[in-house]
């Protein structure tokens, strides 16, 4: 009987050997790639970047809706102009542009010999096609750029000249021309995108990875790295272990707790997430339709305490729908408009007819830990003024359909970002008739200010008007503003060049190995 057992084990061993053995054969076919990088061997000029969410979206830049997908595809696509780290716009596919005296006609001259990743040269036709595609949005899934509705005429004057005529002068029109320029005769953008950026798309495996390679024919400063693998690791523990095991060289959007666990192999770069994190209040819903109640909530909240407790002190407090990276539009005097004052808050509540407080729910998308943590602290702080808040965790997709689109909520903690680098992207949403005014903010003054912005042609005047809009939001306590979250990026020692932008992008072209 011993023999039986031995035979059994032998069989099992054989089976295992067979499994790994036939693997050995196939390994030999790709020996070059599997070389471990020993200190002596020249380090391959490539990195692996960890991403905490899947790139489960259309890769067509005109259809992409997820911030995480846009963040990385920034490296693949460019528009006529593109954003700079300072928050300005710099010509990209266009070499230069002129604006007519009446500010209605834009003339773009394309750079000579800008190539798409498939080798074709960018023509004025491609530019016209790309802008028209976003303006009309007739194709399924295209995200319509509403700012393009002012375009009256767009034409390719010759191979390298595009003229755009708009109906009314606008200081922001240019910033929307960051929309990606795509080849007009290509229909596989969804899964195999082609752009003009410093990196070209190689492959994507769902929930696993995306590979980008340096585009050798890039018109501008070429990327420093030859290859970047974006590795998707959604589980937080797993992400940390992959950082520690050496599988990942760079990872953004880490929490302060994660950063503390990193160890000696990493440097940490700190930027801002460029989000307006707030407890957004449904201004049409009782009791938040009363400005005194909203103000009471603002007086109950201590922003710095939230940042200290839930974020280990990383984060910048804000007081309105604008974050510091926006520079000239940011009004720091609003940050401490409301300072924590429990008595004042209680008095306001009593005034509004709630001397004993009330019960409320805070709906929070549960996959966003920073927002969940913030909500936890908020519950504690609100309890001090007698408001009994309960957190209702909700899936992101349900959040979008119920809260954002359906507006069925009392309050919610999320971060709102700007899709383009304009104050308008953050502030227009609270005008009473705007489709995405999910908090149902309704202020005639605010609407009037926005109309003035639209008709104004002077940049200084516009800036001042935008600041007045911010002030309007603060004074009316439209929301309980909290902070712009810190963006903590782990970078393996030896790598450098992490650049932060005022919008949500990860610029891979500037990252390099230190010499």
């Amino acid at each position, binding site marked *: *009987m*011993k023999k*039986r*057992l031995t035979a*059994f*084990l032998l069989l*099992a061993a054989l*089976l*295992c050997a067979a*499994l*790994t053995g036939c*693997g*050995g054969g*196939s*390994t030999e*076919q*790709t020996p070059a*790639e599997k070389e471990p990088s020993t200190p002596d061997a020249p380090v391959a000029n490539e990195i692996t970047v*960890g991403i905490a969410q*899947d790139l*489960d*979206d*259309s890769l*067509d830049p005109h259809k992409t*809706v997820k911030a995480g997908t846009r963040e990385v595809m920034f490296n693949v696509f460019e528009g006529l102009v593109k954003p700079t780290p300072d928050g300005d716009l710099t010509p990209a596919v266009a070499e230069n542009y002129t604006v007519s005296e009446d500010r209605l006609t834009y003339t773009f001259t394309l750079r000579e010999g800008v190539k798409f990743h498939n080798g074709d040269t960018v023509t004025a036709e491609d530019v016209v096609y790309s802008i028209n595609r976003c303006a009309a949005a007739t194709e*399924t*899934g295209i*995200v*319509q750029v509403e700012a393009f509705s002012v375009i009256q005429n767009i034409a390719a004057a010759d191979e390298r000249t595009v003229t755009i005529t708009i109906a009314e002068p606008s200081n922001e029109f240019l910033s929307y021309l960051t929309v990606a320029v795509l080849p007009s005769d290509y229909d596989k953008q*969804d*899964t195999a995108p082609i752009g003009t950026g410093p990196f070209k798309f190689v492959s*994507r*495996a*769902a*929930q696993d*990875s995306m590979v980008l390679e340096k585009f050798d024919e890039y018109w501008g400063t070429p990327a420093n790295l030859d290859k970047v693998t974006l*590795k998707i*690791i*959604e*589980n937080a*523990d*797993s*992400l940390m*272990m*992959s*950082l*520690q*095991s050496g*599988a*990942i060289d760079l990872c953004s959007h880490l929490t302060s707790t994660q950063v503390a666990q990193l160890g000696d192999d990493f440097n940490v770069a700190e930027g801002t997430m460029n989000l307006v994190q707030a407890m957004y209040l449904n201004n049409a819903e009782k009791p938040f339709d009363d400005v005194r109640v909203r103000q009471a909530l603002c007086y109950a909240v201590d922003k710095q305490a939230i940042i200290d407790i839930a974020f280990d002190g990383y984060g910048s407090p804000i007081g309105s729908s604008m974050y510091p990276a926006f520079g000239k539009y940011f009004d720091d005097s609003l940050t401490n408009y409301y300072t924590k004052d429990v008595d004042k808050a209680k008095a306001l509540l009593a005034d509004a007819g709630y001397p004993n407080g009330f019960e409320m729910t805070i709906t929070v998308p549960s996959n966003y830990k920073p927002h969940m943590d913030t909500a936890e602290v908020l519950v504690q702080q609100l309890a001090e003024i007698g408001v009994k808040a309960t957190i209702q965790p909700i*899936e992101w*997709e*349900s959040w*979008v*359909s*119920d809260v*954002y*689109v359906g507006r069925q909520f009392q309050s919610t903690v999320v971060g709102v970002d700007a899709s383009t680098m304009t104050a308008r992207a953050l502030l227009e949403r609270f005008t009473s008739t705007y*489709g*995405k005014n999910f908090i149902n903010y309704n202020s005639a003054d605010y609407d009037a200010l926005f109309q003035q912005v639209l008709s104004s042609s002077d940049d200084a005047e516009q800036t001042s008007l935008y600041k007045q809009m911010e002030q309007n939001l603060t004074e009316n306590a439209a929301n309980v503003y909290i902070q712009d979250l810190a963006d903590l990026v782990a970078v393996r020692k030896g790598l450098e060049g992490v650049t932060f932008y005022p919008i949500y992008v990860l610029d891979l072209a500037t990252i390099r190995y230190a010499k």
Partner: protein
Amino acid sequence: MKYAAKRIAMLLLTMVIVSLLAFVAFDLISGDPATAMLGTEATPEKVAALREQLGLDRPLLVRYGEWLLGFFTGNLGVSYSYRQPVWDLIAPKVLVTLCLSGLTFVLIVVVSIPLGLRSARSSGGVLDGARTMVNQLCMAVPPFFTGILLSWLFSTLLKWFVHGKFPSLTEDFGGAVKYLFFAALALAIPRIAMTVRMLRSTVQGEMQKDYVRTAISRGNDRGGVLYRHVLKNALVPVVTFLAQTMAEIVASSIVVEQVFAIPGLGRMLVTSISNRDYPTVQAIVVILAFWVVLAGTVADLINQRIDPRLRLGGAA
């Protein structure tokens, strides 16, 4: 033959019912693919337009019928999230999960059967007590926790594998299997403990029976009786249990794949549900249902070989 036909019909019916249930359940939860696709760009008008374009405004049964028709003609549809044919999307993941489950299963069988028989033969004593305790512990600790421990031990500390660097199965099979081994271990440990305990108690129960005493009194040695007679009888419940295990491995692999950053089917299912990606969810649900029913069928067939008495019911 008739039995096989009946089995296949059952299999198909189960898959149809499961897919219908998934379809209906999906319709009941809030959120829909159109809002998921549009994200924060969603406005009621855009959502309505996209729903129409996707055909989501049609009645449930029409959509289901269309899906079913597609399924039987080999067309699983196009993923809403990835805008890519579902089969291209999930085929590599099916392979990974299949390998992981296979490896786990082999580990369970190879370790637990000899171990179970050994522990059945030696009962009582301090060693036995210790063994029971270890067994309890292995059963109680969930695979995801074991997974974190194993990753830490074998990746962070011993550097036997690089956590987060899962090699492609088609390019580096050996490396992939090596990586999967640790995940399989995490999945197998509680199952091994359960199988050992089960085998031990059935074998011990069987050893009390009269035919064993008779066999031994006729001069056979205990070991011979154990392998020739007892094992055959004790195996029937164990095989049934292992078939259930096969199904459960797939379920727990959802979590373990996350822990080990393995791009398998489990993760795919979870995210495609939260993305409201119907075509992908349907395909995965049907594959999993197929898997579970298949495991049950195989177990029945094996049991009939082990114990001919079981054949009388269906096959005659």
